[in-house]
């Protein structure tokens, strides 16, 4: 029996990625990373800034996401996100710009703890990208 399932990543403009031969996907859910295998129970969750790792038989793909919603049902993983890019095509300028804008946001006084947490996390992830 195969242990593969489908993944659909869509952003508002278009369908970003659609594959039917992945065996594991690791998503940065808001309460921690979740690894999803075939026949996972139906789940709905949302994402924090992080890396989505898609493992298929032949390759591994990494995507950076800022936010989004994931739904897993009937062996199809749907990821809805408005900000996503492939780590391979990561633009150094864009990444450093995002870091500085997030840091600028952090330096403001009027942000709540949850937002501060998310922003800190975002900066961390982005910095780890720019090192690689």
């Amino acid at each position, binding site marked *: 029996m195969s242990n593969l399932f489908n993944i659909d990543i*869509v952003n508002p*403009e278009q369908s970003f990625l659609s594959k039917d031969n992945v065996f594991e996907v690791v998503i940065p859910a*808001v*309460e921690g990373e979740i690894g999803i295998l075939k026949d996972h*129970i139906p*789940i*709905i*969750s949302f994402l924090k800034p992080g890396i989505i790792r898609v493992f298929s038989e032949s390759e591994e793909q990494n995507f950076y996401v800022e936010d989004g*919603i994931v739904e897993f049902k009937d062996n199809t993983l749907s990821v809805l996100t*408005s900000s996503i890019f492939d780590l391979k095509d990561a633009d150094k300028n864009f990444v450093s710009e995002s870091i500085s804008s997030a840091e600028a946001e952090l330096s403001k006084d009027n942000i709540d703890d949850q937002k501060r947490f998310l922003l800190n996390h975002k900066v961390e992830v982005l910095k780890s990208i720019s090192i690689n």
Partner: protein
Amino acid sequence: MPSLDDLRKRITSVKSTQKITKAMKMVAAAKLRKAQENAEKGRPYSEKMNNVILNLSKSITDKENAPKLLVGTGEEKVHLCIVLTADRGLCGGFNTNIIKKAKSYFEKIISEKKTLKIITVGSKGYDQLKRQYKSYIVENISFKESKNINYFDADKVGKIIIEKFEKNEFDVCAIFYNKFKNVITQIPQEQQIVPLNEDKDDKDDSGNDNDYEFEPDEDEILSNLLPKNISTQIFKAMLENSASEQGSRMTAMDNATRNAGELVDRLTIEYNRSRQAAITKELIEIISGAESL
């Protein structure tokens, strides 16, 4: 009776107008294809979003404490209307149809003595509404600068709506736009986005046996998701609108080109007739002059 010279001038002017409308038609046709593609590409996102929300709202048992964006504030005194129109004219009845639809809604609200607030997106809508409803318009947004429709713009509108909702500035929110059916037909739509109206008829309850695991709990996901859904709905409306606008402009310009062609034909016949009449008149004068000798 216009002189020969007048006729000739009119023919040239109609012909050059025809050239413009023809060019506009072709530009619209090219843009239409792209807009249509974009609208189709954007559909999966809003559909999936709808599905997730539907599944979520099914699993919410405690309706009392559900997020207000979903169930409403319990009142419906203040209505906020988002009217999405184009930034350019010359596209047939496109803008007028949306305005007409919106106006009939406005009249209903006003006659029921409820408070009306209007946000216009797109400058044409503002131009047409400011005469009659100036005092109701709270905001006027235009995306003339952005060449393509992007989610970022839609999100801006969405954020304004959320902000207003959190300040309790309205109870019910509806958006008005044109739905693209085909090149000739665009249907003006009125869609309520706050509170969310579920389409009960098109989904059967087969999804009910799916027991989802939620992380974190339903409420938190919903309150995170609903604001996004508003932006998504606005984005969808903007995509549909842009396809409709181009379609509408294409048909309008096609008609204009054809009408100009007919007008040129008619004017040419008139021009030839009066030229012939002048020649005949001159001949008669010459002949009768020769006869009298």
